[in-house]
């Protein structure tokens, strides 16, 4: 199958007076597994639907492979979309559902059957071919919806929160399966989700959206380690954000918090920025004061199994600290005065 990339250039879209997409630019590479991540209402679905040709026609440019598809009818785009609700047609058997697209392409019936069987085989549900959709579990419906879409060999695959209607354990299993299938077919795929774990575990790259604007694009790890702004920092994982200022003193740089505590920064840190982002696992709790440490008070603690999560008041804010738990480790009691030592070698100043 030919692999197609997707280029989105300066796409604007409004529903009436509400601007929903405000100048989106993206370059999705052929064969890539790409995720749109963002909070509810950020415009993920709207963007995805614009690529498939649904909803109001946006301004800007959308190219799939070599074709400019803006304004093209959805049925002429050769884009496969899996809907959040699966949208299996309840009046057709699984086989008819999956064969629908091929029939629309006027493929002879004799050729449709083996193709449908192959697609069902791919998702491991050949034995359910003669069932009706309402006789399937959520996970099975999900796979049939997937089979129905890939059987027509689309150039790109669009998935709108495909796992959100499944329960937690099935979700983990299905996302692995999705990834396996994507790799096997080499299909350029966009996956919409508001669950960062889903995006992290599946995607090659992702775009974080907020308010109809792309905040940052990159690999999950890059976005986690080097968020471009506070929104991305807070949206991906737990982030402690301390306010203050950067003081540069020759080659030395340090971050001075509102409370006047100082944290040293790696050499060559940029001099502007009024926030420092510290991940919970990069902070240690000690009873004694020390270098690069903030004094604080334990407000709350939660036992999470492999970890203990503390909420500590320090540096003028409340800081989350995770300590890995092992037998015999003693806990800090609520109210205890402690000192937080932050590993700032990779800290991000924003």
């Amino acid at each position, binding site marked *: 199958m030919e692999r197609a990339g997707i280029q989105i250039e300066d796409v604007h879209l409004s529903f009436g007076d509400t601007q929903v997409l405000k100048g989106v630019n993206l370059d999705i590479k052929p064969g890539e597994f790409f995720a749109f991540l963002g909070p509810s209402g950020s415009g993920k679905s709207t963007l995805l639907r614009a690529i498939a040709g649904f909803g109001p026609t946006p301004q800007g440019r959308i190219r799939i492979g070599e074709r400019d598809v803006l304004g093209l009818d*959805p*049925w002429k785009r050769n884009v496969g*979309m899996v809907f959040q*609700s699966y*949208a299996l047609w309840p*009046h057709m058997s699984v086989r008819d559902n999956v064969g629908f697209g091929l029939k629309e392409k006027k493929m002879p019936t004799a050729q449709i059957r083996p193709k449908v069987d192959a697609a069902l085989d791919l998702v491991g549900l050949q034995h359910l071919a003669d069932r009706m959709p*309402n006789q399937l579990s959520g996970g099975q419906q999900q796979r049939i919806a997937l089979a129905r879409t890939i059987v027509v060999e689309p150039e790109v695959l669009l998935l709108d929160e495909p796992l959100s209607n499944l329960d937690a354990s099935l979700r983990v299993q299905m996302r692995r399966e999705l990834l396996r299938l994507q790799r096997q077919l080499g299909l350029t795929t966009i996956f919409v989700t508001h669950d960062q774990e889903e995006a992290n575990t599946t995607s090659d790259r992702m775009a974080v959206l907020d308010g109809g604007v792309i905040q940052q694009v990159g690999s999950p790890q890059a976005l986690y380690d080097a968020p471009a702004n506070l929104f991305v920092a807070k949206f991906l994982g737990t982030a402690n954000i301390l306010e203050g200022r950067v003081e540069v003193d020759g080659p030395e740089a340090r971050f001075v918090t509102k409370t006047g505590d100082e944290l040293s920064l790696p050499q060559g840190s940029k001099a502007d920025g009024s926030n420092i982002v510290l991940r919970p696992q990069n902070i240690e709790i000690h009873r004694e004061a020390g270098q690069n440490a903030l004094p604080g008070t334990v407000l709350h603690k939660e036992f999470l199994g492999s970890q203990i999560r503390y909420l500590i008041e320090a540096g003028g804010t409340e800081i989350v600290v995770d300590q890995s738990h092992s037998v015999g480790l003693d806990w800090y009691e609520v109210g205890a005065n402690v000192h937080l030592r932050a590993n700032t070698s990779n800290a991000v100043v924003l």
Partner: protein
Amino acid sequence: MSQQTTTPAAVRAGLADRLPVWLVPRVSGLHVAALLIALMLVGLLLVPVAQVMIVAFQDPATGAATLQNFVDFFRTSLFRESFWNSFYVSAMSVVVATAIALPLAYITTRFHFSGSILIQSLGFIPLIMPPFVGAVAMQLIFGRNGTVNLLLKDNFGISIPFMDGLNGVILVQSIHYFPFILINLSASLRNIDRSMEEAAQNLGSHGMRLFRRIVFPLAMPGYIAGAALVFIKVFDDLGTPLLLNVNNMLAPQAFLRISSIGISDPMGYVISVILVVFSILSLWASFLFMRGKDYATVQKGGGGMARRTLKPGEKVLAYGVVIFILLVVLSPHLGLLLLSFGTIWSFAPLPDGYTLANYVTMWENSKTFIMNTVLYAGIAATLDVIIGTAIAYIVIRTRIFGRKGLDYLATAALAVPGVVLGIGYLRTFHSIDVPLLDKPLASWWVIIALALMIRRLPYALRACTAALQQVSLALEEAAESLGATKRRTIQKVVIPLMTGGILAGFVTSFATAAVELSATIMLVSSNNDAPLAYGIYLFMQTPSGRGAGAALGIVAVIVVAIGTIASQIIIERDKKLKSSGDVH
């Protein structure tokens, strides 16, 4: 509250309350009411209908059980013909009604179409006119020498037999009953999640193919529900064929046999059995079809079918189709209006002149009809809401034994055609004399009111049930916990809160009872006892009476229209009142 406050119930607690239940069964006013209602339903619905069924299977001479009547029925070529005609007319009416309703439903639900609300409300207009009223006006417009054919003949030298024989019945019935399909189909279409359609478009489908393969099948349950109703209504209807002088159909045959040969002739009963069986069969068939097909697919984040903006060309086409259909649909009303204001209207596209004389004649000759109608429909609607409220309360709020049965029995009236009820009453009550009046109950005017009451009870019951369901049980319990007795709670809390719904039920029952013909036509024993619908029928029998008949028809239409609008307003206002009450 202090310990000394005793509830009235506690004050009355006497010996009976201290004895075991099995010794002194607790009989409340509600039990008595339930029993009375049950007796009434048995006497006025079950017995007459059972009587009809039994007579159909009896040898008229000996009274022995036999199938001979049915054999005779199917041996008579006129009856065989009537049977097929009824079937054919019903089926064709469904087809024509579909042709009218489908484009309207599709255009209004699927596109941004500025006339959508207009169409959806105009769709109700045919329902507010009894079909037989429009039938004569339709003759004048679409008949052999009617407006349309005269124009066709003059301009193209052709004529189309729209109104000849069965065609006329089909046309009148489908114009009248298509809203059943329109309403149900539109509701179904609106319940299709837009992702259902988009998934198909995504896979390369669009236009008519998309409609045929995805949209229409998904709307099928609503369509079938509407179509089954149309089929039954047309199959059972007596007024329209009678007015169009089409007698070779089942319901008119039943009427004619009973009214010309007498109530001992078994054929009327055989036909009644067939009518009832077909009503039940088609309801059952539609139920079977719809089982397991709850296709309401609107889902989280969905929101009905995606509406598309029409392209300019499509817009012209859509408006053309809609306007054409609306013209056809409104033609009986226009025709009736012209007829009522016309001097002479025959062999001409339009009346020769216009006058108010028809209304004067109508008023002079119809005072009794109108008074009777107000009396009968008033009695029927009052009883309907009283009984409807009682049944609703008993079914929803009590655990009285057999309460469901009460509900089913009252609702079963829906499946009983008016002709059948009429025949049943004649048969059952002709041998019972009214004390003091010295005439059979069957020919006393009260029986007409009772027949109307039974016929409209299912609708009133539904309105009352809906009203009661909106009264939260907590309000009732609050009153009881403050010491009110059951009876006072019902009087002071439940009924006032239900008022809106009850009133709406009353108005609907009244308006539709006012124009009912099929049961009344069998029970009217003298013109002095006749209601408005029968009056229209009488007027329309002679060409000279048509103008006045049309004027009376207009009165009927206005009565029903006001009733419908009033009940709509009452329901809306009630809803607002209740929802604003929820906020506090």
